[in-house]
């Protein structure tokens, strides 16, 4: 019965195998591939939902199944489902490679699911690399441009550096504590953090993780990868991968005790730098994907505000923010994927006249952007509110004020996109209306409802997040 704890991972491994079989077919059928992937991804949602309440240990306690990990697994499954749902017209990737595309998405998801459960350093590292390698392959998988190859190389190089930091940090941690198990580390940590080796070890590990989350100064890959990778892959990196990154950062920062001023200071500096840098540079971007890359750097900063409080409420608020970010960011990317002609990149001015071409998509985009900017009553406002509230309870007033100023700056470039969608007239007179299928409509309504309803009534979700955060160790 114990193996049932591993159910989501098993399910997605099976799904990966099915997709692998499809990829070795001589005749590629993109419709069939899509339907299979979509069906399996939808089913996966139920599987992860079913296993949310499970808890226990596996593999000699290297693997921990609890509410924290299971909630994140559900979010990851949701992210995969979202991305697969908008792949019905996968024009950015050549038809022969569609099955591989789904296959690597799935393996990446498996890797991240294991990542949020792993409580042993080596298991953790292997899971991290499984997800990273999948992404290394997915990024240059784009048809045409050649830009993707540059982005792919850059991603690998910076990723390799980050991995080096991570491994070095882990070895330091092992050196001072003689254990690779996180719960045992957690017990020893109050003493270890005072030693230089312990502190630097933790810092190096976090550096490796911040790479995934694209926190300044480990963000250099993000703009190029967002821009270079195909739209669907970018969507996946911007949603599911960010959620996993938030989970593991919480896991490692949670090692430190609550009153660790040095760590708080470092995280504060990184958070402020991330927010400010991301928002400022985003202002001058023309390519929406690149713009959202910088916005994601800024959001990594907001999440850090919640995390650096080092207490349960702060972690819970960061978890809530992760979900909010998943939904809002996906809403924006979904519209971009739909608007993109032949899977190319979308510039801000390409959105001109969107509200006439498809009022529904324009509405989803607007709500998604309002959410990202933190305008009530969207889920994004609630997320920011909870994060700022957690920081306020710790007395970090200056940090909250900086965060709010940054939210104001970010409003500027989000509104530029909304202005393009609603107020600009397209250059050409005749732009055909966008066809929005029934399934996509349902997805749109669902997203709109989630953005607004969860913004108004977040308490139940936040309670779950709090319960999950208290399970951390």
């Amino acid at each position: 019965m114990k193996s049932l704890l591993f159910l989501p991972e098993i399910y997605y491994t099976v799904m990966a195998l099915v997709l692998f079989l499809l990829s070795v077919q001589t005749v590629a059928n993109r419709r069939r591939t899509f339907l299979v992937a979509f069906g399996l991804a939808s089913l996966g949602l139920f599987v992860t939902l079913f296993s949310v309440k499970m808890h226990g240990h596996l593999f000699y306690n290297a693997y921990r199944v609890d509410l924290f990990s299971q909630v994140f697994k559900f979010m990851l499954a949701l992210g995969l489902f979202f991305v697969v749902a908008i792949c019905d017209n996968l024009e950015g990737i050549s038809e022969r490679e569609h099955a591989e595309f789904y296959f690597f998405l799935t393996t990446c998801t498996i890797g991240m699911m294991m990542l949020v459960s792993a409580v042993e350093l080596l298991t953790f590292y292997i899971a991290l690399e499984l997800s990273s390698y999948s992404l290394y392959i997915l990024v240059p998988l784009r048809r045409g441009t050649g830009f993707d190859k540059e982005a792919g190389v850059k991603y690998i190089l910076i990723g390799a550096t980050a991995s080096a930091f991570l491994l070095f940090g882990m070895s330091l941690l092992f050196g001072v504590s003689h254990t690779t198990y996180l719960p045992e580390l957690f017990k020893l940590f109050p003493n270890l953090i005072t030693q230089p080796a312990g502190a630097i070890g933790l810092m190096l590990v976090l550096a490796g993780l911040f790479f995934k989350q694209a926190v300044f100064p480990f963000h250099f890959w993000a703009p190029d990868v967002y821009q270079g990778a195909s739209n669907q892959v970018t969507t996946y990196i911007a949603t599911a991968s960010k959620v996993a990154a938030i989970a593991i950062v919480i896991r490692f920062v949670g090692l430190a005790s609550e009153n660790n001023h040095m760590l708080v200071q470092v995280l504060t500096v990184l958070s402020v730098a991330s927010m400010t840098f991301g928002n400022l540079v985003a202002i001058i971007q023309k390519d929406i994907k690149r713009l959202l890359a910088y916005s994601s750097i800024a959001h990594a900063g907001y999440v850090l505000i919640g995390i650096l409080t080092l207490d349960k409420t702060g972690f819970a608020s960061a978890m809530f923010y992760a979900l909010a970010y998943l939904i809002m960011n996906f809403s924006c990317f979904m519209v971009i994927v739909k608007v993109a002609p032949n899977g190319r990149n979308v510039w801000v001015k390409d959105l001109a006249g969107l509200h006439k071409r498809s009022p529904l998509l324009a509405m989803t985009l607007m709500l998604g952007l309002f959410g990202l900017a933190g305008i009530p009553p969207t889920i994004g406002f609630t997320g920011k509110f909870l994060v700022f509230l957690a920081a306020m309870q710790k007395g970090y007033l200056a940090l909250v004020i900086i965060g709010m100023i940054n939210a104001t700056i970010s409003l500027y470039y989000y509104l530029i996109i909304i202005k393009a969608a609603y107020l600009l007239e397209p250059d050409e007179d005749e732009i055909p209306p966008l066809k929005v299928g029934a399934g996509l409509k349902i997805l749109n309504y669902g997203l709109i409802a989630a953005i607004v309803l969860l913004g108004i009534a977040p308490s139940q979700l936040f309670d779950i997040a709090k319960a999950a955060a208290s399970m951390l160790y």
Partner: protein
Amino acid sequence: MFVKDPILLACTITVVLPFLSFLTIICYTRKWEKVSCSISIGAILISLICAIYLFIASRHFAEPLQYKLPWIISGKTIIPFGFLVDHLSMLMLVIVAVIASLVQIYSLGYMAGDPGFSRYYAFQSLFAWAMMTMTVAPSMIQFYIFWELVGLASYLLIGFYYEKWSASQAGKKAFVVTRIGDVGMFIGLVILLLFYGNLSIVGVNSAAVAKQIPAPLITISAILIFCGVIGKSAQFPLLTWLPDAMEGPTPVSALLHSATMVAAGVYMFARLFPFFSGSADALQFALLIGTITMVLSSTMAMVARDIKQVWAYSTVSQLGYMVMALGAGGYVSGMFHLTTHAGFKALLFLCSGVFIHHYHTNDFFVMSRQGARSLKVPMVCMTIGALALSGVFPFSGFFSKESIMVALASHPNKIWLAAGLFGEVLTAYYTFRLIFVMLFPKEMEETHHEEEHHEGEGILYWLMGWPLIILASVTCVLGFFEKQFEHYLLGDYILAHGVEHGAEAAHAGGHWLTITAISLVAIGVAVAWLEYGRKGASQEGFLSRMPAIEKLFARRWYMDHFYRWALDMIIYSGFTNIFTRNDRRVIDGGIDGLCRGTEGSGRIASFLQSNMVQYNIFVMVAILGFVALSFLG
């Protein structure tokens, strides 16, 4: 609760129905004109019935009846919402309901075929709701809220032909100018609230106020509250909006600017009369303002050529009379004049409306030449109204003015009486100037309107005719009910609160006063007859021989010019200029600078994002090194 208490039920119905009608029309039935007007008229008629019932039911009340529902509770201050049923409020309620119903019925004819017909009825309902809720307000907060809503409704109705520049300007002027007075009123109310603790009307009128607030403060707050009266009732120096407000449809003028809305100011004066009488200085101030207003506006009416303008100026001067009466302590005479004036002034406006509707002009000289006197019903009714306005026996105006003169006579300073009597001459003169011109045209034009008349004399004509006849008959008989009126209004209530009404006691000894007044009116009429009425009259007033004075009167004593000048000099080139500069330079400039700075720093920061991977990695390592160093140090 409602079933057990018919008074509460009636109050609720009276007040709520017009509001529901407004909502229904504005939201649902704008496309169907017939439905809209039926809803509105039905609502106001039911309200009228309820109001009459309340009027009768409340005749024996010794104490005012209050219904209150807490609306806002903040600390110790409770702001209630509800009804105050006493003689004064019920009297006003009936006046408002009667005039509003008649005007709405009349409008069926006047507004027929107007593209904004439904909108018109929606605004009429809004007005009726605001005015009636204000009338029955138990606290000054509710009173103030609906006072402003009345202002809003009148703004909407004056600017009803909003596509016309002058109409929208007039609406704006009415709104802004009355607001100036309202600011004073609001400050006065706040002073009362601060020092007395609540604003219930019964409480403010009670003797307890004088004990809690020092006397100078009572005077200040009374004068500030009186500013509201100055604005709403178009008293000097804020009287210039009312003549301009005639841009609205004529029934609107009849409703708002003669009978009800401007009377709201006087009503408030009467409503808080015991409070005002707590300060002799405030009463003196009111008396002064009323007198100036009365004389100034009478002179303006002497030279106007627009029929609605003449009635507008006469309204202002009659309001001046009411304020004078109240200021002199004549509570009953002021309210009585308000009542009679509501009747005959609505009558005059509605009659003018018939003429304007027929001849498409406002100039009564032109109307006259085109044969205005052939419209029998409105002509007769208008003459009755004019007789009442100038105070000729036995029409209602005679009795109410008489009672005002008595009130003024009882005042120790006789200068007010002299001014009042002088006003009688002017009133008679300008009124009959108009009537004689209309009746005895100098030369007749061959009218091409003849055929239209016959078409016009259908159901629409009589829809407009019947309200005239009703109002004319009321005007004829109302005066004889002065005793009953006084009895009803005073009851035991005012007596119980120790208001002197010595004015009424002096009634008996005033025979000489009556005779003087009558002869003065006769002089005024005679002058008008000599100049306009008799055969071969020049139809030029004696003022035309004094062009400077005529110009002074025609230009409204240069008040508008003065305001324009003050506005330009003080507001526009003073405050506005400074604030605009502040806005442009400091605020806009600052924000622009901030935006440019932000964007510029974005450009600078983006240099960090070069495409050289080795450089990127170098930055990562360098920063990590710094972090490590800071940990160690």
